[in-house]
């Protein structure tokens, strides 16, 4: 299992990459493996406001449906439209082509309370 060092993580298994005031969010390698066979995504439109800890969409795998939870607050500036026709991209490349949304952060300080790669890896091991 892969936990890239340069990313931040949530306990609901999302990852975030911070570049300036833009946060790119996806789901972790652990999450995609647990879900497996991702078949549908329900995603919000550009311009939608999201709030830390609140669901902004859903992800459906053959065996389960799960909320997508915002890691940071702000406004969605880009949605990965490629995923609509190829949701399995998340299974194949969760940290790359499988990114889900980009958010312009309204409160960049929130990023400080996210988990580091080490903390997230430990969390995953303790949970499972």
């Amino acid at each position, binding site marked *: 299992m892969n936990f890239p060092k340069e990313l931040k993580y949530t306990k609901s298994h999302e990852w975030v990459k911070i570049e300036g005031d833009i946060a790119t969010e996806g789901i972790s390698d652990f999450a995609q493996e*647990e879900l*497996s*066979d991702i*078949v*549908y995504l*329900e995603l919000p439109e550009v311009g939608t406001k999201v709030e830390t800890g609140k669901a902004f969409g*859903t992800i*459906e795998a*053959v*065996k389960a*449906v799960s909320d997508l939870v915002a890691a940071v607050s702000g406004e969605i500036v880009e949605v990965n439209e490629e995923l609509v026709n190829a949701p399995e991209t998340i299974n194949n490349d969760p940290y790359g082509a499988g990114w889900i949304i980009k958010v312009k952060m309204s409160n960049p300080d929130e990023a400080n309370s996210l988990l580091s790669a080490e903390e997230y890896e430990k969390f995953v091991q303790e949970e499972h």
Partner: protein
Amino acid sequence: MAKKTPYYDKHVALGGHIVNFGGFLMPTQYKSVIEETKRVRATVGVFDVSHMGEIEVTGPDALRFISRITVNDPSKLSLNQVQYSAMCYNDGGIVDDLLVYRLKKRYLLVVNASNTDKDFKWIKYNVKENVTVKNISNDIAQLAIQGPDAEKVMQKLTDIDLSKIKFYWAREGKVADIDTVISRTGYTGEDGFEVYFNKTYADKMWDAVFDAGKEFDIEPIALGARDTLRLEMYYRLYGNDIDGTTTPAEGDLMWITRLNKTEFNGREVIIKQKLEGVKRKLTPFELLDKGIPRHGYDIKDDKGNTIGHVTSGTLSPMVERGIGCGYVEPEFSKLDSEFFIDARGRLLKAKVVEAPFYKHGTHK
């Protein structure tokens, strides 16, 4: 504490995602539910189903006894024939669905894993005839070898002429030099066999089957794919689609219920329901909208009234659409009726279709 089948270590070594299923630690998937489903439909796959329960019935009144506790008619069984049936409580609620094997010296009842103890108690409680019942589940391992190439694989391992075993028939004999009961049965809609043997030989049987299947890309298949395969065929899952609160009339199982038998548990209630009609009926549907129906979702009419609930649902890897079944009021259970599945607030349009959902199964 959760039990393990003799193949538990294999499931772990193969990278299976292990969950507690009906009291057993079992894999839900090895690689992918979709890939495993397609493997069984394309060539052949192997399921560890050692968690299933086996109950032996012997004695001079065995046939009469089984006839009284099941809804189908075991007197129709020839030697080595198998029958799908169900046991009911006196109020018509289903205790379990099961297979009845008529073998040389005994009848064998094959029941759902999580129900084995409950079933065995219920069966013993019902005995008034001269019979002996024995729960042999802990001694028996079972593999299901399923798929269009299953016969070619298994024929390498036995002198029994498998081409002579018809669908829902069995034989007792050696497979891989191990004493077995082998039947042409399964839970997938594909051709295939289920093999019962003493668990001492679990590893030997597994290795023999996988060696024989190598040329057909044989793979282990876990419970996730077992569920999509069975639902594509609209085979019931006890605990989801049928249970102690639903009758064979409600559960769309009248095709295995023989009301012309003079006595069996639940008969009066089922006859009354047949005459007066049921208030709800298990109904197979396909989604017209994109999405996946799931166990527990409400079913609604076009005015938003709840008319039932989903008992099983998935994305069918073969039909490539959301499929499922659920209990609805009888007026909505007719072919082509339309209703909505409430998927966490999103209303997905669904239509009643003719089962099975997957029409190209190779079962004989």
